[in-house]
């Protein structure tokens, strides 16, 4: 797999998550489960490629999401996706990470992302739901989807980003 594939693949992922995935979510869960596929990809970049790349991917795709679905305010997704993907890279980059650890980290990061997004909306008084309600209503069910997706793409994502990191390292030498 080569380096040039990362961005087109993530663009495709973004398109799927905003158009096709809503049709696949079962009726009672509609509006509750939020797919963060692009964010999961950015986290994989942080784990296996490097923190700067994760920051750029997270920020860029977050910004696209912010602008395209501009409803209440701009900047929530670009800030959170960038910062959380970067932090993941900062803490775990370059370490040998087995699959279960990777999934656990992704689950934790997704939870953090949703909770922080809720926090921002709460601060700007866009929502007045309690955190307990939002947690049970949408954050917890979405978490399963995110981890499921992370598991499904683990092998290709790792191959893609590790190849990229190796190539970068080779170039640096």
């Amino acid at each position, binding site marked *: 797999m080569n380096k040039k594939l990362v961005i087109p693949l993530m663009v495709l992922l973004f398109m799927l998550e905003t158009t*096709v995935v809503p049709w696949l979510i079962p009726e009672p869960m509609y509006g509750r*489960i939020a797919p963060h596929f692009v964010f999961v990809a950015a986290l994989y970049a942080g784990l296996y490629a490097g923190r700067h790349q994760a920051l750029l991917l997270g920020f860029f795709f977050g910004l696209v999401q912010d*602008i395209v*679905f*501009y*409803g209440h305010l*701009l900047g929530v997704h670009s800030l959170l996706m960038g910062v959380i993907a970067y932090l993941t890279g900062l803490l775990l980059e370059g370490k040998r990470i087995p699959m279960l650890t990777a999934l656990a980290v992704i689950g934790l990061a997704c939870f953090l992302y949703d909770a922080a997004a809720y926090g921002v909306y709460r601060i700007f008084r866009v929502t007045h739901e309690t955190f307990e309600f939002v947690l049970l209503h949408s954050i917890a069910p979405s978490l399963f989807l995110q981890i499921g997706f992370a598991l499904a793409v683990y092998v290709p994502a790792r191959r893609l980003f590790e190849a990229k990191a190796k190539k970068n390292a080779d170039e640096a030498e």
Partner: protein
Amino acid sequence: MGRVSELFRIFRNKKLFVLLIVLIVFAAIMGFSLGQRDKLTWPENFVGDTVTFVQQWFYKPAGYLAGLFEDIRKMREIYRENEELRTTVARYARDRVTYNRIELENERLKEALEFKERQKRMFDYEYVIAQVVAVSQDPLNPTFKINLGSTDGIRPDMAVVTTDGLVGLVSRVFPLYSTVMPITQLDSESSGARAISATVMEHKESFGVIEDYDTQRGMLVMNRIAENDPLSKDDVVITSGLGGVYPYGLVIGTVESRQVGDFGLTHTAYIKPAADFDRLTEVFVVVPPDIEEAAP
């Protein structure tokens, strides 16, 4: 003294410093973008329209495929629905005759009362059809995009309806596409609070203000109903057009229950929305006549 140098040491850490600056910048951006904005900047327009242009190639076919499977599963239901629709059409044909007569008479009376041109056109709403091209999956910001924008004469705050009833308000307008905020986001405590002034079809004198959505019950909350208001269960709630934002006569939902409000002075009613907010494919934007003139 020791503590101060400690503080400086933390700030000498470049990463933390940058993070702080980033947080401040983003807080400013969020605050700035929160309120009403009639025009967006060109980078926003460019990114928004380009991405949505691609999204529209995905949403429709996906919906079509999903619909195909759904249709097979719901064959029986569709049969029943067809029966129902047939009786509705029969009723419609009957009502049409009455409507034509009343419209002619109305026209004549307006003429007789010397209505001004502007008054006559006041309720001439134009229903512009729009396709939904993408859906946001953020549960706290559940906007969707339609394929009409400022070049088609769409402005912020126009009402968006389906054949069932009111769905939302146009939130932000890009040149070729716009985002729609569903009425499930109504919130009297939010900074950009909007409310729908409503009345019911059965009693013209009823009045209330819909300004909240109860996510846990899935119902709109209608406040400030007078104690002696004739509004009762199963009444059809429509917009009253008094607030100036929403046009007159759009169906919102049916009254589910009514009780004494928080302060005991007025009543509160729960309204079951008529429109389905999930999986929309086609909506109508209600364009009021001469919006420039109508705007205060």
